């Protein structure tokens, strides 16, 4: 006797515990196996690009905070670099070092979130998540010292940062940097050798490098597939050419590789921050208001600047018509573009792998929908 089966279509989301925001999958299951999947999003669309067209260049910084709200420093950085390129502003060295420190701290925080929620999707009842959040908390506290806010920082300004770090910042940073490797070791001894995690993530949702690069994936996604492409190394912006760091690579291209790459990248962030602190010298953190006024009027033209965000290549494309606000502000959002291959990654896997693979992409709905 053969049993007659038929595929079932289920909407997972928008209200689902592990959709990392407001996201909807329309999945067709054949038993437990995924036969077809269609991502549906836009629930968080706020029209940031349109809003940017009606704000001055200084005010748009606050919008970039809210695009990728777990790595807002990096969004700020990408936007500020685009404005600097558009206006031809020469940034102050101390400001650049400070924003590199802030960006790397933010990268640690963002990767912590990614790892924590990936493990949460694996069903650990929040234990790695709380450990990861605990480390992120230290970063956020430092952000509060730097700029008075924890998530929506708005710390960076064209030409540097808005204000020098307070005197008590560097000691706190130093103690954090010396404590963090032990915490990462602890997390790694907890997670990386864990047989269940290995069984759950290995060989699932494998991305071949050729396919990944053709689909414009960037960041940890392709470094996990064995492509040594890190914009900090290949196209150094700010002063990344003055620091040395390793680029962790994994060749498997599966969920475990993506987890592993993020884990190792956090260690590299520590070395980068240490080098920044060493090379930082006293001085102004932003050019004077005569050089960079509040109300910027860039010359007519356009500029595209991409940085290595925590999730991939984060680019801002600004078009100026000579006015006080951008004529067009386009964001090349890595979370959004990393979703391209979701269907290919997931078809044929089981239901349990769905959210794990989704979590390993590490996306942020604020950035996907913008």
């Amino acid at each position, binding site marked *: 006797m053969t049993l007659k089966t038929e595929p079932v279509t289920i909407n997972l989301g928008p209200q689902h515990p592990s959709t990392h925001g407001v996201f909807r999958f329309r999945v067709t299951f054949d038993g437990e196996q995924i036969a077809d999947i269609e991502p549906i999003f836009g629930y968080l669309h706020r029209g940031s690009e349109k809003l940017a067209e009606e*704000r*001055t260049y*200084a*005010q*748009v*910084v*606050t*919008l970039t*905070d809210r695009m990728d709200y777990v790595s807002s420093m990096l969004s700020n950085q990408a936007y500020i670099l685009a404005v600097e390129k558009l206006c031809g502003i020469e940034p102050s060295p101390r400001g650049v070092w400070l924003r590199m420190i802030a960006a790397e701290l933010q990268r640690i925080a963002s990767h912590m979130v990614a790892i924590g929620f990936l493990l949460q999707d694996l069903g650990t009842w929040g*234990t790695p998540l709380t*450990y990861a959040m*605990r480390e992120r*908390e230290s970063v956020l*506290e430092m952000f*509060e*010292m*730097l*700029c*008075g*806010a924890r998530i*929506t920082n*708005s710390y960076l300004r064209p030409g540097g940062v*808005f*204000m*020098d770090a*307070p*005197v008590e910042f560097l000691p706190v940073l130093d103690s954090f940097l010396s404590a963090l490797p032990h915490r990462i070791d*602890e997390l790694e*001894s*907890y*997670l*990386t*050798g*864990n*047989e*269940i*995690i*290995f069984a759950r993530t290995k060989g699932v949702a494998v991305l071949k490098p050729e396919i990944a690069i053709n689909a414009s994936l960037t960041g940890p996604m392709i470094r996990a597939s064995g492509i040594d492409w890190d914009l900090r190394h290949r196209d150094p912006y700010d002063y990344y050419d003055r620091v040395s760091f390793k680029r962790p690579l994994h060749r498997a291209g599966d969920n475990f590789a993506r987890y592993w790459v993020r884990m190792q990248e956090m260690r590299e962030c520590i070395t980068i921050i240490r080098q920044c602190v060493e090379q930082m010298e006293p001085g102004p953190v932003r050019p004077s208001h005569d050089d960079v006024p*509040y109300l910027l009027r860039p010359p007519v033209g356009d500029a595209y600047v991409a940085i290595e965000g925590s999730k991939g290549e984060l680019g801002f494309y600004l078009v100026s018509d000579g006015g006080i606000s951008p004529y067009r502000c386009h964001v090349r959002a890595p979370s959004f573009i990393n979703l391209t291959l979701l269907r290919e990654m997931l078809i044929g896997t089981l239901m349990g792998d769905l959210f794990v693979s989704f979590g390993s992409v590490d996306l942020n709905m604020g950035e996907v929908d913008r």
Partner: protein
Amino acid sequence: MQGQGLLKGLGVTMKNFVRPVHTVQYPDRKVGLLGAAKRAGVSPFRFFADNPREGLKALLFIATVPERVQQAPRFRGNEFTWYEDRCTGCASCAKYCPLGIIKIVTHPGGIDVQEGESYAIDVFDIDIGRCMFCGLCVEACPYDALHMGSQFERGNYVRNDLVIDIEQLRSNLKRPSSWFRPQFEERKFDPFKGETVDDHYKAGRHEQPSPDELKERWVDGRK
């Protein structure tokens, strides 16, 4: 050996089990007799004798002591600190607000202590309900008249109550945040120590114009 990673994981969680708690209970924390007495600064017996009711609660571990997190002095908070004497009504803050939630109505004829004549302010509304505390208004203020506040507890039942009007701005406790105010940082001013800065002279200026500059700006520039 298989299973080693699993056992290691158990070890890590057990290590965290005996670690001190990382979270902070806000706004208060449940304590026992020892904790309550320590907070009150007396011996447990004294505490019990002084206040048997609280002491009984403390014995059951249901006495509460207030608790809050250490905040940074730069914390961009609620209840803007505004020095009316210093405000010239230029409305820079309103212009720089990305959301346009600051409303200023002025009429000519006010007197500014620092720079001579200015506008008198009739209306100064800040819609805190829509404010995102980016601090650009503070950054834009040329006379250091507006400062970010340091509080965050402003729950309300009615949305309209979230609009801070000029009366509230005058009467608010003046505990300015040191966001974009380097003069506070140099003085190591911490708004969370309970200290207030009521006088605008004490608040200082972060870019104090020299008398020559003032003369040039206000006398020579107007000829």
